[in-house]
């Protein structure tokens, strides 16, 4: 059995910025428990001598000349914004009262 509990799922929802309902927490707790039990088997073969692979094809970083290229206009950047004012994105308060 894994250690997926409703409290843990609720905490993960906070970290992921998803306001989960109580029903969702209950359902996810059961489902994640089954899934985590199944996928935890990766640790059976991941012994210390095995090197981790992050990208399937090895790549090395490449620098390019720092030249001015095409960029989005301000109108393009804002065209999908839920709310904008004075050429900027507008959001509700960044800090809560207790902060």
């Amino acid at each position: 059995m894994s250690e997926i509990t409703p409290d843990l799922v609720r905490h993960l929802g906070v970290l992921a910025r998803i306001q989960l309902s109580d029903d969702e927490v209950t359902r996810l707790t059961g489902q994640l428990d089954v899934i985590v039990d199944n996928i935890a088997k990766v640790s059976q073969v991941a012994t210390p001598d095995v090197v981790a692979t992050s990208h399937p094809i090895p790549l090395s970083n490449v620098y390019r000349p720092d030249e001015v290229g095409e960029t989005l206009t301000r109108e393009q950047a804002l065209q999908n914004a839920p709310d904008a004012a004075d050429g900027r994105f507008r959001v509700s308060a960044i800090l809560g009262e207790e902060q």
Partner: protein
Amino acid sequence: MTDIIRLSAADLAAKLAAGEVSSVEATRAHLDRIAAVDGEVHAFLHVNDRAVAVAEDIDRRRAAGEALGELAGVPLAIKDVLVTTDMPSTSGSKILEGYMSPFDATVVARSRAAGLVPLGKTNMDEFAMGSSTEHSAYGPTHNPWDLDRIPGGSGGGSAAAVAAFEAPLALGSDTGGSIRQPAHVTGTVGVKPTYGGVSRFGAIALASSLDQVGPVTRTVLDSGLLHDVIGGHDHRDSTSLTDAWPSFAAAAREGASGDVLKGLKVGVIRELPDSGFQPGVAASFRAALDLMQAHGAEIVEISAPHFEYGVAAYYLILPAEASSNLAKFDSVRFGMRVETSGGTVEDVMAATRDAGFGDEVKRRIILGTYALSAGYYDAYYGSAQKVRTLIQQDFASAFSQVDVIATPSAPTTAFRIGERIDDPLQMYLNDVTTIPANLAGVPGISIPSGLAADDGLPVGIQFLAPAREDARLYRVGAALEAALVDSWGGPLLDRAPALGPVAEPVEAQGPGGAR
């Protein structure tokens, strides 16, 4: 005249070049087909109202003597994960409803430059998370072979569109099988290129170390033609390979006409025994191998002992990367915003993400957040990355003995819509044969191998080749395709049931001749 919509892209392109058909005629024929059958198939989320205008332009340029690409004037369906300036791009999610991208994905830009005519955007599981297209926020797509069944996923819309003759060509994306498994269940062809072989710029990212864009078609040659258009280096994608690629269409033509199967060593994986597959799927796979053997191929049993850990590693790596990639849907710069009364931007964000994401997306974000959280990172994400190394070693060892690996493309034929929706783990296990290629970055192709004897539904055979050897898949795939179509007496899709409110009249056939 032959029905335009039933032509392969290659044949349609030849008729366009010869002036026998105009692009406007071809485009209208496909738009008419969409109008007739998409009510029941639901392959499209959006149909391009400018398609005929684009086709008119191609016809005009051709008439003026301009040198055009081989596929110029051929219609194309585009998976909704790829952003387009002239049509909404939602990735199957409510959170992006109505989103209009200020730029085209590179593969879309290259398709337009080659003269392809965008027909519309195709349905998909939300953010490409799923194997059935049931996780689309806009309702499921139905399999043209049996409308009660799934068309595969995540790219069920693209596969269903080509299977239902709504488009000759489509673009897809494959993170764990989202091109190949839909090809399997719809009797079509799909290719996942080598990681880095096709640009992902403008593909709404799911898991960046796994995602790859590729072609979805009815024939191997058509996939090669489309791959030639979209492939190659793109400086806008930092993982794009700088290799000079051969023509994949040329490879397919060579495979169809040559003696490619003679002496070819085909590896069959011991750890994927027939008992792990629906009997009709295993039987179709074995029959295809027998046919290859009859044409001179040698079937070799190989071992890939770590493939059984592939699904587990994948469902750690994918959610981890997705939870990070999907953090950008924050209700600030684009997409949905749910207003809360008096809350902070963080409250608005959390409420928006709860309302805008579907169940599967939330499940994977929460799972990924767990896998990346302090104290679990090494045990889960770190271990999964080690499994990737082990699977790459399995491939290296296998490809030292064989030219290609063959597997059935998926464990079962198309299941019924709703059958597995409440069992996410069962859904994840659909991907057992396709996932290793994404983990290792190697290319894969699925082509139809026949119909399963137990339920009469399509089955696909998958071939895998070493990284950068995509051309080998086109040669081998086209060779087997030619042998199979020859043995069937025509394409597999000729046996699909008729769609639409009124079955189309079939000329010169006796009673019972209508398909």
